[in-house]
């Protein structure tokens, strides 16, 4: 098997230069999906006969909640790759996924809370799902704080990778919490295997929002990763040349 791609992937410069060309395309597709998904969900999806219009929050709430968990896996796996293969690029991705995942988790909590008020009659309840997602948010904040707590970058990277990996135990708990503990939070409405309990007229805009937000997550992580690459490689010639070029463009 040809492993060249793997070595290239490990080069921050290669990543930076490759993604420069991808960014506009990802941004255009992401933007279109989000605009279509939001308008469809807000204005054209039929009203829910039990929850009324408040259910329209699902088009944001469910995808951001999924990404809060997927983002954590991405961060932890990047951390593991960094620890095992001592790959510089993996740690950079790990550090960059943390703020994006934290914002997604924050949004899952906030949109869920706003949805809870008209639906359950309360903004917050210490239910298993809500509590485990709050723990996820603190784990993200822990990784971000830990990264800034060390003077030495290598030590900080390793500490963050270990915290991310240990925190992974929380993800299956979040996922299964609605089945293990019978709580206020409803179980999954879309199933990969088996019958979904959501009508197609609501499922399509939801799928568009899921696709759009997955892409958005990728886009945001790439943007953060590029900045982190420049920060860590700031003493190299190529970064110096690249920034000088930008300075000259401004003049």
């Amino acid at each position, binding site marked *: 098997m040809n492993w060249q791609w793997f070595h290239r992937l490990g080069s921050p410069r290669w990543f930076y230069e490759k993604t420069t060309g991808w960014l506009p395309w990802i941004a255009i597709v992401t933007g279109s999906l*989000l605009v279509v998904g*939001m308008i469809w969900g*807000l*204005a*054209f*999806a*039929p*009203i829910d006969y039990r929850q*009324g*219009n*408040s259910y*329209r*929050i699902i088009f*944001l*709430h469910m995808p*951001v909640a999924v990404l809060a968990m997927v983002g954590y896996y991405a961060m932890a796996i990047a951390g593991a790759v960094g620890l095992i293969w001592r790959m510089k690029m993996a740690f950079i991705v790990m550090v960059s996924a943390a*703020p*994006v995942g934290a*914002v997604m988790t*924050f*949004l899952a909590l*906030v*949109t869920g809370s*706003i*949805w809870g*008020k*008209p639906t359950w009659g309360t903004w917050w309840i210490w239910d298993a799902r809500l509590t485990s997602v709050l723990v996820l948010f603190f784990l993200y904040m822990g990784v971000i704080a830990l990264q800034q707590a060390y003077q030495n970058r290598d030590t900080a990277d390793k500490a963050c990778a270990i915290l991310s990996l240990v925190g992974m135990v929380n993800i299956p708990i979040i996922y299964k919490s609605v089945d293990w503990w019978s709580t206020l939070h409803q179980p999954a409405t879309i199933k990969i295997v088996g019958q979904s309990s959501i009508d197609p*007229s609501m499922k399509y805009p939801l799928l568009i929002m899921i696709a759009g937000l997955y892409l*958005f997550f990728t*886009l*945001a992580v790439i*943007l*953060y990763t*590029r*900045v982190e690459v*420049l*920060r860590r490689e*700031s003493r190299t010639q190529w970064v*110096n040349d690249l*920034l*000088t070029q*930008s*300075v000259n463009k*401004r003049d």
Partner: protein
Amino acid sequence: MNFQFESLADFMTMKGHGPFVWSAYSISIIAFAYLVLAPMKAYRDMVKHQLKKKSREENASD
């Protein structure tokens, strides 16, 4: 596929659920914008820093 509301006013109020739906969407859009703008600002700050470095070097060589 039809517009689900009788009027624009009906769309805004959403039969009482308007404040919840619209605030959830606005907060999310602001957060998404932040995730794009924050790294872009960090990049601009680096370019500014480079500009300062460049002018320092030019002054030093004079």
